[in-house]
């Protein structure tokens, strides 16, 4: 048997008709009925759906600096198990990914791990401090080939700085991914501001703090003719503003997290910090608007905002707890639950919002490609009929802070092929992809 040859038998391609896929040396060599290849390892995919490997535009891998929370190795294992073949590693590490040196380090850690493509996101401003542009060009030109820039976790709130960043990244086809949060309106904010925060006595995080920044940024993007990406849109009003901007032809893309598609601020009544996240869980009306926005294309992509934390950062008072939730290993199931089981989207739509469009936004070559002959073999096999109960202690991520703990969800990732190599088989980690000894990059 040839080591790099796999024959996937009878997978419903993007949820359509069942066909075979022949993968050889990292490429889809053939697609059709009753393919045969004597030297191939056969993967029986009856009842499974074949999808392009998922591309996460928003992941926190924590390395360098917080290896007690996650490492590139553990985070990318979680990604592979979750059906991803590429992740964008956010810049809020320590040191901050604001130089070519740091993004190259993260990039090479990703290659050494070999579970997925790790695409470092560069910081917009030095140290995420919001005062001075980081060397965006140097990061773009580095081996990491950074195209997405974000101060995620912190909003680039200075309008002049945001304008300059949007303008500057045009030089290398970059995109600024904004964490939309007006800082003065959210000083000390703990949860969505509304009926629940009023009762719980937790400082509110008004929707307007997100919406006002998005409104400003789409107008800035229009003015300077640049490309804007809005991270983790969480309110109905934000969806409306993005819809308006797109109708005006503004070059804006938007992302939603799985948790904002499913959970609401009612959960905060428990005061359990596992539900503490930035942006906060909103109301049911917001959840419905986000689902509709994702279905109609107003929101372009799903991004996990996977944010692992060590347990001591969650086993405490709400106000003391860190913000963030894990998400890589539950993303597919939550999107299936909220978008597919509800009839809002098909699996082909799923491929668009989790793979095709994210790869375009991040300018990731060889990812988010159609499952056609000659294309790179980044393929996942999903069992849509499976149901499973979330147990954070069984996850590959070091973070135990899953808000879906104990929840029964549909859909499992049975196999992940990354560059034609099975990183996941039978729902278990297999082996990482090994890059050729001499890097061409």
């Amino acid at each position, binding site marked *: 048997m040839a080591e790099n040859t796999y024959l996937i038998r009878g997978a419903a391609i993007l949820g359509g008709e069942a066909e075979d896929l022949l993968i050889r040396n990292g490429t889809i060599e053939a697609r059709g009925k009753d393919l045969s290849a004597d030297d191939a390892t056969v993967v029986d995919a009856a009842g499974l759906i074949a999808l392009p490997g998922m591309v996460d535009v928003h992941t926190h891998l924590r390395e360098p600096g917080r290896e007690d929370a996650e490492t590139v190795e553990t985070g990318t294992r979680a990604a592979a198990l979750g059906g991803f073949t590429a992740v964008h590693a956010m810049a809020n590490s320590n040191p901050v990914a604001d130089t070519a040196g740091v993004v190259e380090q993260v990039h090479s850690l990703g290659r050494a791990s070999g579970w997925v493509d790790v695409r470092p996101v560069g910081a917009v401003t030095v140290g995420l401090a919001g005062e001075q542009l980081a060397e965006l060009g140097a990061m773009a030109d580095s081996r990491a080939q950074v195209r997405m820039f974000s101060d995620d976790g912190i909003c680039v709130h200075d309008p002049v700085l945001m304008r300059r960043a949007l303008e500057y990244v045009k030089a290398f086809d970059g995109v600024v991914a904004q964490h939309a949060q007006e800082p003065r309106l959210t000083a000390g904010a*703990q949860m969505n*501001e*509304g*009926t*629940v*925060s*009023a*009762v*719980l*006595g*937790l*400082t*509110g995080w*008004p929707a307007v703090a997100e919406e006002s920044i998005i409104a400003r940024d789409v107008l800035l993007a229009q003015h300077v003719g640049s490309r804007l990406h809005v991270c983790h849109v969480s309110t109905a009003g934000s969806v409306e503003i993005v819809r308006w901007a797109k109708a005006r032809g503004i070059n804006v893309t938007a992302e939603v997290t799985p948790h904002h598609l499913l959970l609401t601020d009612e959960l905060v009544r*428990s*005061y*359990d910090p596992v539900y503490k996240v930035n942006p906060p869980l909103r109301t049911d009306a917001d959840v419905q608007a986000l689902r509709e926005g994702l279905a109609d294309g107003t929101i372009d992509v799903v991004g996990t905002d996977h944010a692992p934390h060590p347990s*001591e950062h969650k*086993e*405490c*008072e*709400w*106000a*003391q707890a860190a913000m963030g939730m894990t998400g890589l290993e539950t993303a597919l199931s939550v999107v299936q639950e909220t978008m597919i089981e509800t009839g809002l989207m098909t699996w082909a739509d799923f491929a668009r919002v989790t793979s095709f469009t994210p790869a375009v936004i991040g300018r990731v070559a060889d990812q988010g490609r159609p499952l056609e002959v000659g294309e790179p073999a980044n393929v996942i096999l999903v069992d849509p009929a499976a149901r499973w109960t979330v147990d954070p202690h069984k996850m590959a991520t070091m973070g135990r802070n899953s808000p879906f703990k104990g929840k029964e969800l549909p859909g499992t990732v049975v196999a992940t092929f990354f560059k034609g190599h099975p990183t996941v088989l039978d729902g278990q980690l297999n082996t990482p992809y090994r890059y050729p000894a001499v890097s061409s990059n």
Partner: protein
Amino acid sequence: MKHLLSTENLSAFDAIRVLDTAEEMSAVGEREVKKLPALRGRTVVNLFFEDSTRTRISFEAAAKRLSADVINFAAKGSSVSKGESLKDTAQTLAAMGADAVVIRHWASGAPHRLAATDWIDAAVINAGDGTHEHPTQALLDAFTMRRHWSQVNGTGSTGADLKGMRVAIAGDVLHSRVARSNVWLLKTLGAEVTLVAPPTLLPIGVEHWPCKVSYNLDQTLEAGTDAMMMLRVQGERMNASFFPSTREYSRRWGFDDARLRALDDLGMKDTIIMHPGPMNRGLEISSAAADSPRSTVLAQVRNGVSVRMAALYLLLSGDSREAAPNASQSSKETN
């Protein structure tokens, strides 16, 4: 009742049981030997992450009158905790055999965390958490109101609720755990509550609360009120633009001498003036109002001990159907 965390989820049945038990406890306070053996050998920890001498000594007196051993733990932590975590503190207290933890914390929900986790198995009493709730304050306020209301109506207070009583609560509702606990409890007991505050000091979402909201104290008084509760207002709120100046606040929302006279002019001879303390005399309440015969400020403090005795007793005495010892009146059979 395993814990006393909030009044939001306190049933009318449980609330009235606490108030009735407090009536019995109050009789103990009038005896020469102000002590009951009920909680002998039990350990009550006052765990205070925020200074509050008044609340702490009230709980301490209550526990001691029930013969419990009292440990005061002042764990005033900074917000960026360099000290021990809540979890470690709780586990330490559990290892020392605490039967009840009276917790005061600057973070909303901290008592809920203690009760919901397996860090400690003790009964948890919320002695004020952040801007969330202060249930024993609301219970002592309700106790004070119930005594007054039954006196006005010429009925006995035991077993009674507050049906028909009009209560106005004025001040910084946004940041007030006392206001929240009072709104839920008074609603449960049948009173009609009106919150009076500048719009900046009311939470978004207050329109869903079971009460009326007014921006005008004079109109609220003219409409008639049986109890006027003033909340403490921090002058520093002015620096965050919640109101322009303390003088403007005082003119519009303070219970000043003119409003005290207005009660007489409006013929409301039975209206009481309440304040949870500590008072900012001259800001939210004038000295004349605080010291007037209408004021129940000191009665509230006195009743606080009885109510906290009742809470400790009901949570720690095990079988909740047990009658209070040496009860002056027979306790109602409960399930």
